[in-house]
């Protein structure tokens, strides 16, 4: 038994674990890709195109500047909308946390906004605004704002009263109170909020571009639909998926950087 435990701690064991995790993570995708490729042998191209075609389309998008510009425009819209919603949501959440009357006034409005479907906001924006960028920015803000506000508000309210009292006992300036207590207390929740809202925003931006824009990934998807090009539709979709995965990875790296102090139980759940 002791020998077995010792064996697990060898460099080989240490290498085997990450490799196993990688295989476990990749296995469902490999299986999915295999099924799709198998389907492409029996179904027409416009239903199940070969993954090789999808790959060529994807590379073509990367290699052609005009197409890559469409991808970058969509990314910029997502990030711009999220940053805008986060800044406004942060301000609103701070006001709501500090003042119960402001909270009582704003909370029902934000709840009401949350109940409005993203597609309705797209229609409203197309009617209200002429400029495409303004339309999309507006849609991104109104659809992400309630979630960001409530998430930041929740994080602010969850700050430990004991710790706040302790820091306050040293009589800090507001700036020091923010840097010593508030920011470190809420950073974990903020990063989680970004992860959640990023996924939502990437879906909303496609709908917004599909209906209210003449460029971007959503618009390109509409073009592919009109010519029944499934490989093209998949290739454009993959751009968005890659983007979400990359940003999620960055957020995870930030989490590892800022939240490394958290105790981890040796027993996994």
């Amino acid at each position, binding site marked *: 038994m002791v020998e077995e435990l010792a064996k697990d701690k060898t460099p080989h064991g240490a290498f085997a674990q990450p490799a196993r995790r990688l295989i476990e993570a990749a296995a469902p995708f490999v299986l999915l890709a295999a099924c799709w490729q198998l389907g492409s042998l029996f179904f027409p191209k416009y239903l199940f195109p070969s993954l090789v075609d999808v790959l060529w389309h994807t590379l073509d998008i990367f290699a052609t500047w005009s197409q890559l510009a469409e991808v970058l425009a969509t990314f910029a819209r997502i990030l711009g909308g999220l940053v805008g919603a986060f800044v406004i949501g942060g301000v609103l959440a701070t006001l709501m946390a500090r003042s119960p009357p402001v909270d009582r006034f704003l909370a029902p409005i934000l709840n009401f906004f949350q109940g409005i479907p993203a597609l309705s906001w797209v229609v409203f924006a197309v009617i209200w605004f002429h400029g495409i960028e303004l339309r999309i920015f507006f849609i991104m803000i109104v659809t992400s704002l309630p979630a960001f506000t409530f998430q930041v508000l929740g994080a602010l309210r969850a700050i430990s009263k*004991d*710790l706040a*009292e*302790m*820091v*306050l*006992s*040293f*009589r*800090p*300036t507001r700036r*020091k109170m923010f840097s*010593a*207590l508030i920011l*470190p207390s809420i950073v974990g929740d903020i990063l989680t909020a970004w992860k959640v809202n990023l996924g939502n925003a990437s879906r909303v931006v496609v709908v917004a571009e599909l209906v209210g824009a003449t460029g971007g990934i959503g618009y390109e998807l509409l073009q592919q639909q009109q010519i029944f090009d499934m490989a093209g539709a998949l290739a454009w979709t993959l751009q968005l998926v890659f983007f979400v995965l990359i940003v999620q990875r960055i957020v995870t790296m930030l989490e590892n950087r*800022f*939240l490394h*102090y*958290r*105790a981890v139980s040796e027993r996994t759940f």
Partner: protein
Amino acid sequence: MNAPAASPSEPEIHLGHVTKTFGRPRRGAESFTAVDDLVLDIAQGDMVAILGKTGCGKSTMFNMIAGLLAPSAGTVRVQGRDPFRHFNELRGKIAIVFQNDRLLPWRTAIGNVELGLEILDVAPRQRHDTARYWLSRLGLGGHENDYPHMLSGGMRQRVSIARAFATDATILLCDEPFSSLDEITGQRLRTEFANLVRENGKTAVFITHSIDEALQIGERVVVLRRPAKIAYDVRPREVGPQAWEAIRPNIRGILSE
């Protein structure tokens, strides 16, 4: 406008007919008086143990001295200033050791000790050296870079004591800091703490609900009955063991009321 500083004859801490009521009786809500017409003066360098039953208003009194609560009536003065209204003017003058360690989980032991010094704008090098010195004084040399979850309860409370001493505040407020520790660790820390307070000439207000702890720490013992009002104010070493033993049953009676 700055409040005038305390004159040499003025007590370090002054509570003049202080009352603290929670709730809003005018609006029909139930009110609760935690401190009732409390009069207490503490001289510079005094080591006062405030003894009282749980819920007798000790912590409320403590928070008013710290400036975290305003009195409903009466005056609170710390070094001649109102600690609530002139909150920032007492920066660096008061340090608190709480009942639980209240360490910031995202900071290492040394980072936690540096907190007060950061707030006082001490240069990074100096605050690092000071924090290291106090950790070492409290027997935590070698644990500077440990996070709170890596330390035992006793070690964490030592860090919080180091954090309070590091700012070199003249007044130390301690709210039952050893009550959550086991008997032996608590006893050892109490002795170390009392020695440090004496060596550094601090004015210390030490809240406790244990008669023995009050006797061990306090040169002066103030016994509060509920709502916080002084029942006894004695200096056990001055009155002598016989007199102290004579009043001990009465104190025990107040604590069990």
